[in-house]
């Protein structure tokens, strides 16, 4: 997000105090998903019977239009499994609300690719967590690499430009950054890297999968020369403490300039914080989303000046601003303390000093109780290697 010249005060201060409407927000349309990624932020799998109806979704879009929210990041679960997905998409774009949506690619056809290519108001991204099938499929499930790359091919063939390949950086794929870049170039796509959060099922794998301290430095050194050619969704602002900040706002926008609407209409401070402690309200209550955004106690509180706690005296506090609230919360660290991935190692040392800390669990878990059957019969079984022969 480039800032323009002509300044009156620091933009960051305005944003930290909150805006009357979010700049953008994440909207998870369903908890249903045909994959079962081990790090899923929203612990998705099964549809929730309370999910918003088509009419309720249209109502949300009407509100976003009135608030002049430029675009929504639609995700899930897998949003395209909703039967009314394309209808919701059309409703948004004809009501001045742009859509960016994330998909695993399993429902991308030549037909809907052509439809997407024709619209300026829709931006799409495919999730991929490895530049090779072995690395990707270990996280996203067997067959998911092939599914994703086939969808990328369809988009490229349909003449789509500037779609994204979205990668959650992990210990197992951080050495593949050049390969990801080459893959994006091959399809004329843009690469987007985001941070692994210990949220949802991510909490179960964070210890083993989050980049090590040297890997974080490696990531930073790789990102810095690429500037805004590689998108990061502002997700690595904790790395700013290495020196020069990466492009972006470099602040936590939770409840201030961004938020999450979940499939059942609950509004959370950010997509990485699906927990009662960060739930501001529900769009089904009087006043709808607008009232939740403008008057909820939680959001009011997040918009008040925050104390840096243990970090306030650190000379790097102005660059990292204490890091990610959700990452602290779900690793059991105090919210005014260091980020678990603090580049100075303060998070790590605090984690080791608090071995018995209470780690909160996400409030909503829609994981499937039994592992999923293969996506299609010819793909290798996701149960391969785990089957019990009697």
């Amino acid at each position: 997000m480039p800032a323009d010249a002509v300044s009156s005060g620091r933009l960051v201060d305005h944003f930290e105090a909150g805006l009357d409407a979010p700049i953008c927000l994440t909207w998870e349309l369903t908890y249903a998903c045909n994959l079962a990624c081990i790090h899923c932020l929203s612990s998705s799998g099964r549809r929730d019977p309370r999910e918003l109806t088509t009419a309720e979704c249209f109502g949300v879009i009407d509100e976003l239009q009135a608030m002049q929210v430029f675009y929504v990041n639609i995700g899930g679960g897998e949003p395209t499994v909703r039967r009314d997905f394309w209808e919701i998409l059309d409703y948004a774009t004809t009501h001045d609300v742009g859509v960016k949506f994330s998909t695993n690619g399993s429902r991308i056809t030549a037909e809907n690719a052509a439809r997407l290519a024709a619209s300026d108001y829709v931006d799409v991204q495919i999730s991929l967590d490895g530049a090779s099938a072995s690395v990707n499929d270990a996280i996203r499930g067997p067959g998911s690499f092939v599914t994703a790359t086939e969808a990328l091919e369809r988009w490229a063939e349909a003449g789509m430009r500037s779609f994204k390949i979205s990668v959650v950086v992990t210990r197992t794929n951080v050495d593949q950054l050049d390969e990801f870049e080459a893959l994006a170039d091959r399809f004329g796509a843009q690469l987007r890297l985001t941070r692994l959060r210990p949220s949802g099922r991510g909490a179960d794998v964070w210890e083993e999968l989050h980049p090590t301290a040297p890997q974080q430095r490696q990531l930073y050194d790789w990102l810095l020369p690429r500037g805004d050619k590689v998108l990061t969704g502002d997700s690595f602002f904790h790395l700013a403490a290495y020196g020069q900040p990466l492009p972006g706002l470099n602040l936590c926008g939770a409840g201030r300039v961004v938020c999450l609407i979940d499939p059942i209409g609950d509004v959370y401070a950010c997509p990485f914080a699906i927990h009662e402690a960060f739930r501001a309200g529900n769009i089904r209550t009087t006043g709808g989303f607008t009232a939740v955004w403008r008057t909820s106690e939680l959001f009011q509180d997040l918009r008040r000046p925050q104390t840096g706690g243990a970090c306030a005296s650190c000379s790097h506090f102005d660059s990292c601003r204490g890091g990610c609230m959700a990452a602290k919360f779900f690793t059991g660290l105090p919210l005014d303390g260091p980020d678990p991935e603090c580049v100075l190692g303060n998070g790590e040392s605090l984690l080791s000093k608090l071995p018995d800390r209470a780690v909160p669990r996400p409030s909503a878990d829609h994981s499937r109780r039994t592992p999923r059957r293969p996506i299609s019969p010819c793909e290798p079984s996701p149960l391969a290697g785990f089957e019990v022969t009697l």
Partner: protein
Amino acid sequence: MAFQAEQAWRLDRRVAIRPEPFGALAYHFGTRQLSFLKTRKLLAVVQALDEQPTALAACREAGVTEQELPAYCRALETLARSGMVVEDAIHAR
């Protein structure tokens, strides 16, 4: 495209503007870029572009002083570089 203050400019039709206490947010649906207009005066300049024959006239209309003019021209140049404002062919002289 090089920005020239003596020429006619306008907002790209795919740009939406949202006024804010600090200035405004501008979002380009074609490039999916978000920009920040950091003063209300810059917002007034951008809004005046359509009506005014040149960018310079739009600055004057919005109350930009001679002293402020270089900074505002630089801001418009930034907006032109990212395609937020484009040359206005219809009003071009």
